[in-house]
């Protein structure tokens, strides 16, 4: 695989950056610097944070030229997600939508069934649907069949910074789903973002890890490098890992030479 002309394609739109940045949990004034250091071309935004015409309106702080990815946080079922998505298209003027359907206030784990339902409705309405989901192969297939533009499985619970606890299952999605798989939620440090990319993830979305860093723009920059390194490693073909020490000293196929 070549590293030249390596684009992330979502709903027909091409992106050079594979780092999707979140805009929550840190001061609005830092968003621009974070985007620049991250080299991010897509930034997520909770529509419920938009405060049009009012104080502290997050929309006023999104740099020009960055693709807005509104999310449906606050939705507890498919119908609410659909309503928020339609509103987000009006407010943000973007066809992109990240579906978040959550009716668990403790862990904020997504509801795959309701998410697939919302995906189907919104894809038919022309949205570029990016569903946030729990990494389950059947659910991912449902979402793909429903018209999703990518699949966004969680690495671990939102905000936990625990890394890719669902590694085996995300790997299955990467192997089996013919859509970009973007690891979202739980990525706590650049090395984990790199790991996701080495696994073959198409992109990484991160927020809390950057928002809770001492130097937010610098951490955004660190993630950028890690994601690029992981992508290059993946495209270069990862070296093999010796699981039982060196090569077997008595080959099982030696008899073929006898």
């Amino acid at each position, binding site marked *: 695989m070549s590293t030249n002309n390596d684009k992330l394609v979502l709903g027909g739109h091409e992106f050079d950056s594979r780092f999707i940045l979140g805009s*929550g*949990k*840190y*001061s*609005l004034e830092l968003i621009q610097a974070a985007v620049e250091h991250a080299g991010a071309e897509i930034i997520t935004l*909770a*529509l*419920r*944070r938009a*405060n049009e015409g*009012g*104080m*502290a309106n997050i929309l006023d702080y999104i740099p020009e030229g960055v693709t807005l990815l509104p999310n449906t946080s*606050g*939705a*507890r079922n498919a119908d*609410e997600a659909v*309503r*928020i998505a339609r*509103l987000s298209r009006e407010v943000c003027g973007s066809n992109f939508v990240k579906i978040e359907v*959550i*009716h*668990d*206030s*403790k862990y*904020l784990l997504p509801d795959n069934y309701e998410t697939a339902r919302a995906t189907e409705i919104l894809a038919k309405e022309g949205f570029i649907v990016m569903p946030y989901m729990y990494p389950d192969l059947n659910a991912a297939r449902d979402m793909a069949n429903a018209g999703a533009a990518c699949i966004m499985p969680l690495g671990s619970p939102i*905000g*936990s*910074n625990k890394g890719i606890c669902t590694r085996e299952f995300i790997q299955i999605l990467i192997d089996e789903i013919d859509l970009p798989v973007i690891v979202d939620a739980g990525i706590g440090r650049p090395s984990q973002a790199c790991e996701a990319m080495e696994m073959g993830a198409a992109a990484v979305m991160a927020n*809390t890890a950057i*928002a*809770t860093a001492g130097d937010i723009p610098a951490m955004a920059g660190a993630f950028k490098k890690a994601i690029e390194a992981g992508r290059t490693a993946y495209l270069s073909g990862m070296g093999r890992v010796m699981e039982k020490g060196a090569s077997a000293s008595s080959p099982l196929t030696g008899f073929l030479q006898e």
Partner: protein
Amino acid sequence: MSTENQMKDQHINESILSDEIKEHQKKNRIDHMTYLPDMEVLDSDVMDRVIAAMNEYDYETYTEADVRRALAHDSRTPEDFKALLSPAALPLLEEMAQCAQAETRKHFGNSIYMFTPLYIANYCENYCIYCGFNCHNKINRAKLNPEEIKKEMAAISATGLQEILILTGESRKKSDVKYIGEACKIARKYFKVIGLEVYPMNSDEYAYLHECGADYVTVFQETYNSDKYEALHLAGHKRIFPYRLNAQERALKGGMRGVGFAALLGLDDFRKDAFATGMHAYLLQRKYPHAEIAFSCPRLRPIINNDKINPMDVHEAQLLQVVTAYRLFMPFASITISTRECARVRDNIVNIAATKISAGVSTGIGSHVEEVEEKGDEQFEISDNRSVDDVYNDLLKLDLQPVMSDYIYV
């Protein structure tokens, strides 16, 4: 409460008692555990489980090692919560605060939500001996009409706030559900987030107010010790302990998104009350996993005609212990810090564990605009008079991010 119980009670707050109240306490009163007609009875075991857990809680048995173990845990159990609220945790308050701050940042980043309460009426049918609105307290009573509510809301909205908490005294007669509903409908025009802190009602009434635009309901249980509750709430609907305790569950059944909980610290044994408050929220969140949980941490304050009221043994350190214990037990919960506390305490607590702060507060009726003629007296004295701009700027100085709304009504 029987004389025997009173002798055992180490937590009598003398500052709320007067000779007149002591006389009233001797009179016969209705049974506080029996529902009145028209009060909806839920088939729920939450109250019994909360009370049983509280009764079992012996905070003297916890040691420093228990507290350290609780702090080291990744997610904390009710047993950890007990340790964190125990006297053994007080010497570890700095560690608790550090840990609570890390949890707050993880779940909320540096966001602090701003709001203001709007008292639309102070008529009350209850006799809660520590409250300025109680029906025997001689204060100026008032109720805003829709036009006045509109003026007040317009004035509040002009300060930049997007969240309002509508409050009334607890009088179904003077402030009926329809009246509160009309206030919600007006609020929808000016605000994104509408919360209610009004008398407990039935789930169909909560459903109606949800349709009118409200999505959050807070009910202070005051104390979870039913004997003490009985001795403090001498008359009115509020006297019925189980009806109040189950209000949050009825609100959730009525379709509200979030519910708020509080014990009024200083009325009784604050450790037990704080524990029961946390368990109440914990059990309801397990039963209704989508419910957004909020805590308030009010301490007793002086009222008109009794400036001596104080929170007994709940000093600032104990308050901080309660707030940080809530945060560590339920890291995802919203925690509001009241204007009952001074600016110094509030600013420090939002920097550690609280996520919500009121600003531009008055607990009186009709005080946001001059044109509102009829004015009613306040519920309690506030300790932080800062305007919305002041609080906004002070949050920025703390490197915190004031958030006006993080919510969509769907």
